[in-house]
């Protein structure tokens, strides 16, 4: 797709990203000082976030279990895909029944991805509870979904593109706003 050109505006730098993750980790720690806990990331950047959180919570007892979800099979827009989606393996190596799960994603937007991820988790078993951790909540929800832990809240327009970049996946920590160039259309 050769979409319109984008103007990129930095919103959060590396320190702010790190601070956001630290805040989320702190929130989880306060709410769950001990006992079994699992952090499950949604491919791709949700997995990076889950990994960072797991590192920060590694001194907890016990350390959190980790998992990854590919929600492709739970998407509601298969009809619109012209290419075959590459499905990554979903990896939930702990028993889901009775587990406390923190679902992790980089951005919370319409809520549809989270809906799909929750549906998928429930198909693995019956967790005791599912919470949601996001680095950025950018509003514009289409479903009644809210994050339990939020790193940053940003006020955005529906048409904005918010890109989260992580060292592990993109070589730097940053959040940028991509706005279509206002070409005289």
């Amino acid at each position, binding site marked *: 797709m050769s979409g319109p050109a984008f103007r990129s505006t930095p919103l959060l730098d590396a320190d702010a990203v790190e601070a956001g993750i630290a805040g989320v980790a702190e929130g989880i720690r306060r709410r769950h000082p001990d006992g079994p806990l699992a952090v499950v990331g949604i491919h791709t950047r949700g997995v990076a976030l889950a990994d960072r959180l797991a590192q920060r919570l590694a001194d907890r007892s016990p350390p959190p279990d980790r998992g990854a979800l590919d929600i492709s099979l739970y998407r509601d827009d298969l009809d619109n895909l012209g290419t075959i989606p590459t499905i990554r393996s979903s990896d939930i190596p702990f028993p889901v029944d009775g587990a406390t799960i923190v679902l992790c994603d980089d951005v919370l937007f319409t809520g549809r991805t989270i809906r799909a991820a929750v549906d998928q988790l429930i*198909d693995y078993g019956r967790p005791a509870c599912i919470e949601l951790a996001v680095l950025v909540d950018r509003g514009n929800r289409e479903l009644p979904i809210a994050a339990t832990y939020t790193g940053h809240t940003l006020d955005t327009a529906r048409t904005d593109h918010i890109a989260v970049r992580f060292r592990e996946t993109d070589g730097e920590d940053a959040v940028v706003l991509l706005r279509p160039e206002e070409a005289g259309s």
Partner: protein
Amino acid sequence: MSAAAAPLPRRKDLLDIESLAPEEVVQLLDTARPFKELFTRSVKKVPALRGKSVLMLFYEPSTRTKTSFEIAAKRLSADVTNFAVSTSSVVKGESVLDTVETLQAMKVDYIVVRHSSPGVPNLIARHTRASVVNAGDGHHAHPTQALLDAYTLREVLPDLAGRRVLIVGDILHSRVARSTSRCMHKLGMEIGYFGPGTLVPDTRPDFARGFTSFADALAWKPDVVYLLRLQLERMHASFIPSLREYHTVFGVTPARFRQIRDAGIWVMHPGPVNRGVELVDEVMTYERSLINQQVENGIATRMSVLYSLQPVTEARADDEGAGP
């Protein structure tokens, strides 16, 4: 693996292996893996095809393939309908397009078709918006069998390039031989054929080498021996003199089985097996027999196929037209 490759466009139908590019074969096999992982979950179903309808159009009885497709479709949350084809009430073949017209009105999204005549799935595909999956058409093709064979083999031999498969038996009348050899060839395998001269035609593809004895064929050091099912009626049309002679010359006898086991060769068979004809009983319990895995992997592979195809939906067809 295929991570760096550009995303492949979704095709409408799966009619044969021949028209697939090697990358498409790999993509379909890679996509089958996460589906197989689902089978270990408590809920084995995903909502990927929720609201879609899959129609099973089987002009030829086949419990195995049909059940496999049904389970695959249901695990994708599609609605499955069986279209009862009574071959006795209509003149054979004549009803195909009439039936398709009816199906078109039912607005099904996927049609899984098996027919005794080659090319019937192609015919249906040309006349319907639904995605057509060939579940076996005469001697022509059986692409999902080929994919599940390749999938099964990749589980034990991750890189198939340069590996050798010896296909034994009735090559002439076998859609499995046609599709599976093409598929394995596309994945870089070397293909050998061994069987009676009446059943191994000279018109086979160039890539398949022939052998004149089982000993020669095993001396070629195949990694896999794929035994084809012998239709017992071949005996009546002078293709072979007797089942006894077939087993002696072309079957896996106890002596040949020892050779196979000693060489660590994997054994495959599309089923159902004629014991004592293609192979002796011991082969069934051989630790390198893949015969049972083939059945299980059939579901994951067929899920991958259904998931990857793209029917022309009513909505999309309208979008392209001058819809409201």
